[in-house]
Every structure is written in C-alpha cells, then in structure tokens.
C-alpha cells in the first residue's frame, strides 16, 4: 500500500511538472500513466473522472488528481496525488516570483510584455470560443449567459452571487421541466 501511495505521488508530480495548459491537457497523460501503464483504473473510470472533475467546483487538475488517488488508494492516495500535482507549480512559481518583477524592468523584457498583453487576449478569446462551442445552446443558455455577462459588466454584483443566482435558475428550470416530462 505504501508503494501505491508513493507511485501515485511520483506519477502526479510528473503530470504537474510537464503538463502545460491546465486541466484538460492533463487528461491524456493521466490516462497513459494510470490506465495503460499501471492499470489501476479502467477507461470507464476515466470517463467518470472527467464527469466528476467537470461537475464539481475547483480546478480540473486538482479534482482529477484527488479522484484518481482516492479510487486507487483511499484518503492517502488522494492526498499524495493532489500534493504531487500541486508541488511542481508551487515550487516553480515561488522561485519565479522573486525574479519576475526585476526581470520586467529590463527593456527587452518590458517590450516583450507589451506584445504579450495583446497576445494573451487572443488566448482568452480562444478559451471563451471553445467553451461556447461545447455549451448546449438551449433556451436556458441564451437567458443565463447574457444575463451573467450584463450583471457582471453593469452592476457591482459579486461574481459569487451571479453564480448562485444562475445555479438556482438552472435548478428550478430543470426540475420543472423534468416533472412535466415525467407527467406527460
């Protein structure tokens, strides 16, 4: 058992250190290591992992690591996997944070960041477009997405309240619709 926890830690340490671009980029690497190499989980478990990671709060990468660790080796498995996936980012950013601001006062670096600021907008736009494409374009979508946008831009309303409001509307809408469907 000790061995499994250790292997989970090292596996997720590797995943944390070498996966660029966040949660979704990690999924193929997790599959390769956990399903193909160690055969601790099945492909079906992986689909469940993705569904759980997406439908619970928190970063996808953390959710996935905790889920896989728990399924393979209980609480300590979850702990080791989560620690493993967090540690590389933590160490790299911690060290980087001492030099980043000094680094930015070099002229070429300052110029580079003027370019990067314009470029990064495109990346966020790309993320937005891919989320839009993945969304189911239901009536609820066309009510809530613009409402959330307008509330956030034009009122000082806290983002958390906007999320809670949309979750409640979604819940009421879905429960009513499912009741209607089960009656008819």
């Amino acid at each position, binding site marked *: 058992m000790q061995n499994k926890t250790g292997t989970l830690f090292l596996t997720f340490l590797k995943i944390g250190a070498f996966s*660029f671009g*966040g949660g979704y980029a990690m999924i193929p690497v997790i599959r390769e290591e956990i399903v193909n190499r160690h055969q601790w989980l099945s492909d079906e478990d992986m689909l*469940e992992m993705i569904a759980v990671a997406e439908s619970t709060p928190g970063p996808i*990468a953390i959710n996935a690591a905790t889920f896989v660790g728990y399924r393979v080796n209980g609480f300590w498995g979850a702990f080791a996997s989560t620690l493993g996936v967090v540690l590389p980012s933590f160490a790299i950013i911690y060290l980087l944070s001492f030099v980043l601001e000094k680094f930015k006062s070099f002229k070429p670096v300052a*110029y580079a*960041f003027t370019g990067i*600021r314009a470029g990064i907008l495109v990346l966020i736009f790309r993320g937005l477009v891919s*989320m839009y494409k993945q969304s189911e374009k239901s009536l609820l979508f066309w009510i809530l997405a613009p409402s959330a946008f307008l509330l956030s831009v034009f009122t000082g309303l806290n983002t958390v309240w906007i*999320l809670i409001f949309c979750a409640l509307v979604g819940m009421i809408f879905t429960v009513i619709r499912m009741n209607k469907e089960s009656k008819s």
Partner: protein
Amino acid sequence: MILLQLFLTFFKIGLFTFGGGYAMLPLIEKEVIAHSWMTMEELIDFIAVSESTPGPFAVNISTYIGTHTAGLPGALFATCGVVLPSFIIILIVAGLFKKFRDHPAVKGVMNGLKPAVVGLIASALLSLVLAVFAPDGLSSVNVFSESFLRSFVIFLIIFLLNLKKVKPVHLILISAALGILCGYLLEAL
C-alpha cells in the same frame, strides 16, 4: 490576518470555480483587484507567465499572489485555500457520484452554471481588453497613439495565427517577439 484573508479568498475562488481553462478568471480578477493584490496589467502579465509554465492556473496564481503579499507562508495559505474545496468535495463525491449524477437538482445546478461561466468569462475578457487598449478609461483612448496601434497590430497578427491553430505557448513567444520588435522599431523612429 493577511494569511487568513489569503486563505479565505482563495478558498472562495476554489469553491466557486466550475469548469476548466479560464473559468477561474472572472472571480480571480474581481477578488485580486478588490484587495489590490495586483494591478490589471500585472494580472495579464501573470496569465502569460502561467501559460508558459507547467501546472494548473489556479495553483500558479495563488502561489504568486500569496508570495507577493506575504512570502512563503502567504503562498502556502493561498494555495491550500484554492486546493482544499476540491479536495474535500471530491473525497465526498468519489464514492457517491453515480447516485448523484442523475438527480434533477444536481443536473439543474450544472445547467445553470455552465452558461453563467461563459457569460462571466466574456465579461472578464472585456475588462482585460479595456485594460490593454484603454488603460486610462474609454474617454481618453487615442486610436492613433503609438501604444494603441502597437497593441492593435500585435493583437491582429496573433488573432490570425490563432485561426491557423498555432499552440498557445508559441503564440505567447511570437507576441513577445513582436513586442520587442515594435519596441525597438518605435524607438528608432
């Protein structure tokens, strides 16, 4: 006090983030600006740094803000804060997920949150666009100024490259190179 504030703020961010990628951005932007932990410009720069280093954005930004505000203890408190909600919730859900998944209330909450996240990211993007193109407010934008034209040209080039499906890290490197090129070019003129 500052440690507790970092922990609680990032706990809230972890608890109310749904979905991958930039789903976390709207909350981060509001909280970080409200606490004056970073300026909008520093936040945009850090998104670029985060894209170019491994690991989840959530961990990167919590570590960075934690270190900046309160050193290593700050980094630890902020990162634990952002990780803990996921960790606790997954431990609870991992055993029970199959029963919960098809419950109408659970489905309904997700049906409501998914569109909300799309709308909120659009709003966060709008504030970042304003921070880049109109740093001193909309009324004082000069579209013929050097800085506006430079940002606009680089934005356009990266936008076109993005349509060609160039990788994110490469897009950042290209925009950095364009920034350096434009900087020295404008200096020489």
